[in-house]
């Protein structure tokens, strides 16, 4: 298992478009991806869970990846979050 941290910069938090982009990108990896916010852990491949977590802009989240391609998955996840998830 590997992990790293990044801060969410999307002004309206994780709504449909960024959550969808994140989950569908993570879906391409075999590893399990988990987002850990201060008070919750959610499945990084589930757009619904990501949206429902209601993580606001400016939150520092931890990303955990666990599986055969965990390094690649983690790198992709951190880069996506830092780049503002396509917004």
């Amino acid at each position, binding site marked *: 298992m590997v992990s790293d941290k990044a801060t969410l910069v999307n002004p309206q938090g994780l*709504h449909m*478009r960024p959550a969808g982009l994140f989950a569908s990108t993570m879906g391409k990896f075999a590893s399990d991806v988990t987002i850990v916010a201060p008070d919750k852990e959610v499945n990084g*491949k589930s*757009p619904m869970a990501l949206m429902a977590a209601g993580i606001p802009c400016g939150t520092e989240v931890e990303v955990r990846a666990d599986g055969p391609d965990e390094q690649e998955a983690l790198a992709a996840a951190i880069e996506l979050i830092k780049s503002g998830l396509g917004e």
Partner: protein
Amino acid sequence: MYEGVNASEGIGIGTVMVAVDPDLSFEAHQVDDPAAEKERYQAALSVFCEKTQAQADHMKETVGEAEAEIMSGHILLAQDPGMTDQINGMIDGGSCAEQALVETSTMFENMFLSMDDEMFRLRAADIADIRTGILAELLGKEVIDLSVLPADTVIAVHDLTPSMTATIDHEHVAGIVTETGGRTSHSAIIARALEIPAVLSVPGICSALANGMTCIVDGTKGVVVPDPDEETLNGYRERAAALVAEKEALEAFRGKESVTADGIKKIVAANIGSPDDVEAALAHDAEAIGLFRSEFLFMDAKELPSEEDQFKAYRTVAEALKGAPVIIRTLDVGGDKAIPYLNMQEEENPFMGYRAVRYCLDNADQYKVQLRALLRASAFGDVKIMVPLVTCVEEIRQVKVLVEECKAELDAQGVAFNRDIEVGIMMETPAAANIADLLAKESAFFSIGTNDLTGYTMAADRGNDRVGYLYSWYYPAVLRSIKNIIESGVAAGIMVGMCGEAAADPLLDPLLISWGMEEFSMSAPSILRARKTISQWTKAEADELAERALACATAEEVKAVLEAAAR
């Protein structure tokens, strides 16, 4: 006649088709072979996703990229591993696929419904739509199909879901009527994008209408007229044709500057009631916001909105205008606007009572919360503060003292704001009109509120049938007040605008041009028409007309002179 939410403007006349939701009831039962049941679910899900993808592709061509994304989002949500895992888990426990889908999706739906953010609450409707789609596949039922319709169809449906709108045969739809949904629902957004007149949230309309009935959908006023008589029908037909012709002619003014025929620059702005109205204001080509009524923040709440909540709303609007002016009117409570939690006493004569700036100055601590929020928002755009119902110099001076106090407090906290924020007056009382020269020395701008100015000047309530005839800005008393306010402001070198309905009156506009008014603020749909009117007059022509209008002794004569000169 039925009334609802005017969600998409225009007039549609056509033949009713009531679309009835399919019967998706089922008997929940225990399954013996969970593996087969999971496969049955996967198969239904795949078919649903294929159909939805086809809808998204179709929509990309007919409606637009952004709208098609709503459908692509449905596929993502339907395939959500969180939801699928839970459904498979329930099936393993013996539930049938239908039961597992309904329970799991309802749980997610409720989770979204309980969230504070409107945008997330809208996702609940998407989940309900997905559930209907997959359930229909599982049960072998057809969902409502609007992809092939006869010409001029008025669709009546309980709720227009995104998937229905996706495939809608929009060239043949004359209008849409629903029993649910608001101005910000997907149905409303898509109806506006397709320019189909729509009236939403009309309770019981599906039972009131019957297939084959003729029906009028007035999406501008939010009115539905089933089975109209010949006279009504002809009236609406004429209005519909006139609307289309006018709209086409006005498109020539989109994206243009607002200038008089001799090149004097004006500003045509929009009046808004909440941040949600900004989109429509910009879509109608507003150059600025001339009046942002802040009451919505207070009326929609159960207690005083916090500085943070107010700041967010003001900032949203300031940012959306990208540096163009945003005039925000401070709380205009009292009169006909009651806010329960403020516990204001009932008064014999509320319009001459404890309202607007009078209430605010008497509750300075509350008022400063709003002033601080406005100052903070001024760091994000050209926010200006407008004070309503000023009747004397003392009031505007007191407000400015409070603004200075707020600035000092924000400085102490190291919070950014525009140090030169303009504080202006909404000119709406005869008292203010009479001392416009004195107020102009204290005020950064004037904006004339003609609704109250007309009512107070003529001492007539427009809602009172027996005296309503006196409520008209064509009376010389009102015209002279408006002239004095504009000319006093111009003499003092401050910006003068108007945010009452009179600003959009094409008969009055030449007079306003003559007196030197700079900013015309109105409800968004009037903007292009006002820009056209402004373009039709030179200052000299307007001066000549103004002189003749002011020489009249009665409102009737004034109106006749203006109508004869109308362009």
